[in-house]
């Protein structure tokens, strides 16, 4: 039996990194907050490096509640968009080398968003991971958790519902 030779690891990595940076680099607000994404296989961890402009209450000091909300929402949207992009990329339906010239993908739209503030966001780096609980044709439900020093002690949880963009070529809603 003649199996195709597996692709060299650096080719796979550079393709996946290119797709991820295309997706996250195109959204101005993600750049403004300074959010980065660590990738291990298809798993993403969002990283929010601490910056003075993220402070809400300078007396404590603590991260602004709105920053925490934005960080969770960004993580949820990117997780959802990434899982679609990942499937298309790995199935060979899109060519990451040509992403730079192509139209930025229609992003899922937030329908509603609930944040549970468990403890004060400290003036240091924060991390978040999202899990897609339901991925439908029209709706998706995503859970997201953010933590700082200790993964077992999240400082905020979020639950987000999204309206999925229509597939390319379909009439808009």
């Amino acid at each position: 039996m003649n199996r195709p030779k597996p692709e060299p690891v650096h080719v796979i990595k550079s393709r996946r990194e290119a797709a991820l940076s295309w997706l996250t680099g195109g959204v101005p607000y993600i750049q403004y907050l300074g959010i980065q994404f660590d990738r291990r296989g298809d798993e993403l961890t969002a990283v929010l490096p601490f910056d003075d402009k993220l402070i809400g209450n300078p007396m404590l000091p603590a991260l602004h509640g709105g920053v925490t909300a934005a960080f969770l929402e960004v993580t949820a949207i990117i997780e959802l968009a990434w899982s679609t992009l990942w499937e298309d990329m790995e199935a060979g339906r899109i060519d990451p080398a040509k992403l730079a010239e192509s139209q930025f993908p229609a992003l899922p739209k937030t329908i509603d968003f609930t944040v549970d503030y468990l403890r004060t966001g400290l003036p240091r780096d924060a991390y978040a991971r999202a899990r897609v609980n339901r991925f439908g044709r029209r709706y998706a439900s995503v859970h997201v958790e953010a933590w700082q020093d200790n993964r077992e002690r999240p400082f905020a949880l979020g639950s987000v519902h999204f309206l999925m963009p229509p597939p390319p070529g379909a009439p808009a809603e």
Partner: protein
Amino acid sequence: MDRLQQARDFMQALPHARALGMVLQDMGAGRAVVTMDYDARFIGDPVTGVLHGGAISALMDTASGASVMSHPEAPASTATLDLRIDYMRPATPRQRITARAECYHVTRSVAFIRVTATDHDETRPVATGTATFTLERPIP
């Protein structure tokens, strides 16, 4: 210096509120109005130029906190416990966003808030929200 000016100065002292260009327009008796100008750095969808939901959430959270601080029970400080936002429609690009919050009930240690965000069309909200905040009372 009047109370509103004091409150404005207080908001200017909050780094993230200042970074997003938030301005306290009115505050008192458990109500607060805070605005945020459209800014290309806060875009969430590069295709349409619509602001990111996160920036609008930050504005609504700020207005909610300000409404708690303006409540007649005069809390010493407050922090968000829970925030739920429903997004009715995308904010129209290049329009200023206004968040109006009302702290409609407080207990000994919890404040309850309703908040709405609009763009220039004030008849159709962009988002509405409900929140609970902690309420720290002044030490007697």
